[in-house]
């Protein structure tokens, strides 16, 4: 199934992209997707501890199951204000 992956802030540079579609297997979790993304962009793995993940407009856990068409966002710690 297809999902959309978005990167924000300096994660865009690490991924050399701000948005892309990925094909993942049915039943994949956020954690499974993260491993797939790390395979493609090894630099992102180095900042794993500083990585926040959202599905749609909510923060997501690694165990959360994904569905067709989900938008998953990866970004560094937020700094509003």
């Amino acid at each position: 199934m297809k999902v959309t992956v978005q990167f924000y802030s300096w994660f865009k540079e690490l991924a050399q992209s701000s948005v892309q579609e990925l094909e993942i297997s049915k039943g994949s979790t956020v954690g499974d997707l993260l491993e797939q993304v790390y395979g493609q962009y090894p630099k992102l793995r180095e900042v794993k501890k500083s990585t926040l993940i959202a599905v749609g407009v909510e923060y997501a856990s690694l165990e959360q199951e994904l569905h067709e068409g989900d938008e998953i966002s990866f970004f560094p710690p937020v700094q509003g204000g």
Partner: protein
Amino acid sequence: MRQELSITTEIIDETTLNHSRRLSAGMGAVVQFLGVVRELEGERAISAIDYEAFVPMARHQFGKIFDEIDSRWSVESIRLVHRIGRVPVNEPSLWVEVIAPHRGEAFEACQYLIHEMKKRVPIWKRIIEL
């Protein structure tokens, strides 16, 4: 509780915001906060900050924080403006107003809002050096 949220590339216009304030006769306290871009980020002199937001998620997360405030404090109105894009040194990036019957709850709610924003709302800075 009234809620107004704006995430905008426009300059924050305090005068207009203050003129559009509505205050019912039971309200005794208005707390406002203005966050301004400083000339130093750590040790580095800067000229501006570029703010980037994941806007739909930022709006949703602000909405959740507003609802938490509504359930914890007696607050009549919250208004928040976050400027994004390039904000030069000495100009405000954030304007917040909380209106409540008493000052204790207005100060607490305003500080809670800013504190939670800095933890959860997807907005990021990029330093523009001098």
